């Protein structure tokens, strides 16, 4: 649907830091009608035009949020980013070719809980327009060919089943064939339990795929995004040559709730967040989203011993100015 013609109202409304302490119905009863009045052409403001920032609770105008690649302009919080936007952000000029993946309509176990898995799959497919939770693309980054496999958390929690495993295998094969680096960007709750043991078997399968890239002498880089947990973290994601994490992403093996309920341990502050993993030696670098492309290009250039790449022309490079908060490289920490 077309965006409202001149909507600057959100700027006025959301610079107010007190907004977050106001009750939600204040928004519905006061703010929205006011915006409606501002945008007279629009009869109704659908809820999906707005998204609440999980970091500062500000209501963010979605179109603007998307332009910022889902980074909150107020507090710098990194909201989840759909894979198509992610690819657009990373490739030169936002241009890339999708690599066709086999259609995954199958349900090997005929799994059914309160709902059929086949129905859940169909719903996820129509919701995301994707066949499964992974997108594989090739294109140029800093003028050099790379293969990127990006997860979609909106597709059944980005869970890894046979189709996702297949996507990773195909991405790896393509990387080896094209002598190109492989970048994998998980956003996943773990294995897809509706595929039972076959989803568990995607752990060795994906590790073999990643290993084939490394064995070919090509860089294999993992970019951890929020969240990366369970069988995905415990397989291909933790076997990268380089591990980059987006700031404040949840990364871990066991779910926090499982740890609290079964072991009854209290969780330390920042537990299982990117910075925690950096402190514990599990990732190499923590970056903000808008530093990601530049960081990847630099690292790939260094690993492959190439001359510095030209690094203008990305969609990310055109991001308007520095971010007000959180847009800094994490300094080396001393303890």
């Amino acid at each position, binding site marked *: 649907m077309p965006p409202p013609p001149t909507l600057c109202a959100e700027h006025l409304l959301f610079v107010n830091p007190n907004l977050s302490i106001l009750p939600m119905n204040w928004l519905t009863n006061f703010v929205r009608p006011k915006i409606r009045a501002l945008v007279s052409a629009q009869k109704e403001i659908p809820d999906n035009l707005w998204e609440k920032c999980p970091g500062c609770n500000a209501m963010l105008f979605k179109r603007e949020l998307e332009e910022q690649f889902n980074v909150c302009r107020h507090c710098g919080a990194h909201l989840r980013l759909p894979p198509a936007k992610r690819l657009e952000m990373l490739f030169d000029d936002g241009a890339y070719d999708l690599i066709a993946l086999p259609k995954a309509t199958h349900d090997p176990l005929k799994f059914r809980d309160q709902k059929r898995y086949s129905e859940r799959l169909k719903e996820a497919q129509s919701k995301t327009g994707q066949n499964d939770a992974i997108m594989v693309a090739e294109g140029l980054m800093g003028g050099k060919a790379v293969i990127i496999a990006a997860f979609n958390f909106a597709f059944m929690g980005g869970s890894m089943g046979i189709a996702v495993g297949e996507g990773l295998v195909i991405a790896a094969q393509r990387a080896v064939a094209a002598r190109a680096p492989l970048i994998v960007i998980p956003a996943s709750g773990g294995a897809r339990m509706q595929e039972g*043991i076959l989803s568990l078997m995607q752990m060795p399968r994906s590790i073999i795929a990643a290993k084939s890239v490394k064995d070919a002498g090509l860089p294999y880089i993992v970019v951890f995004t929020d969240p990366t947990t369970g069988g995905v973290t415990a397989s291909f994601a933790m*076997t990268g040559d380089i591990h980059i994490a987006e700031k404040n992403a949840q990364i871990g093996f066991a779910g926090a709730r499982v740890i609290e309920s079964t072991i009854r341990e209290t969780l330390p502050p920042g537990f299982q967040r990117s910075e925690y993993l950096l402190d514990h030696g599990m990732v190499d670098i923590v970056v903000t989203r808008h530093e990601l492309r530049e960081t990847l290009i630099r690292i790939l250039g260094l690993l492959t011993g190439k001359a510095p790449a030209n690094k203008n022309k990305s969609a990310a490079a055109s991001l308007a100015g520095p971010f007000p908060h959180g847009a800094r490289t994490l300094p080396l920490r001393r303890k």
Partner: protein
Amino acid sequence: MQVLEFEKPVAEMEAKIEELRHLSDDGQVNIVDEVARLQTKVEKQLRGIYGRLTPAQKVQVARHPDRPHCLDYVGAMVTDFTSLAGDRAFAEDQAMIGGLGRIAGQACVVIGQERGHDTESRVRHNFGMAKPEGYRKAQRLMHLAEHFKLPIVTFVDTAGAFPGVEAEARGQAEAIARSIEVCLSVEVPLITVVIGEGGSGGAIAIAAGDYVMMMEHSIYSVISPEGCASILWRSRDQAGEAAAALRLTAQDLLQLGVIDQIIPEPLGGAHRQPQAVYDAVSKAIAHEMGVLMSLDGKVLLERRHAKFLAMGQKGLS
């Protein structure tokens, strides 16, 4: 011996037999026929029960506290067993047993999860739930095996990798991922036997090998039926339904092409006649070691990779 709910009718009859035997010790007359009659009945009933265990019942048998555990197998079938400790980085993890030994005369490296059999040993072995140091110890021993061209035998029996703050801090996910990667990199035979419970990532970490066997009443799953039920049914009470839906029995896994062989158990489960189980497992391992030892390391690796790369491919249209 602990009696499972569905075994109660059998247990009652066995108690009666025991009583009769006690009477006969007292010199009382002809109860031999009666004992024989009851024993036939017990067998018939066991055959009936164990011939059609539901997946939920299989889960109970697989976790039966009297079931032979890793160290029982090691004690019974591994000669010259020499336990080796530590990951050389942080600690020794007793949830992950490892060492050198011989199976049917063939020197090998043995690795496996041990759950313990009483309170003291369960605590010492952390109920068979390894921490990162356990998986790193496994990696070290697999590398040791490769260096000395020894085959690797792993016994899987774990509810899963330990879910705790410390384990996360030390990189549980990385430890498991690397352990799988090492399984898929060593150019020596890797044979796995799932003896009880194959719990998710904690199990596959030492099970991504050339030849995977499962005991007849063992289970192997991406998530525990209880965990699955609490997520998908929002209640642990539906664990029975989840057990069925997950297709986690040895028979299911053979059908799905995930494992290579099922080792039959004595009537009523491995815990009823453990010696017969050790003999059967030892024989099966020895046979497979012979087959795999004849292959070149690179060929072995290629076959291993091809096997795991194909997993689930049939599921794609």
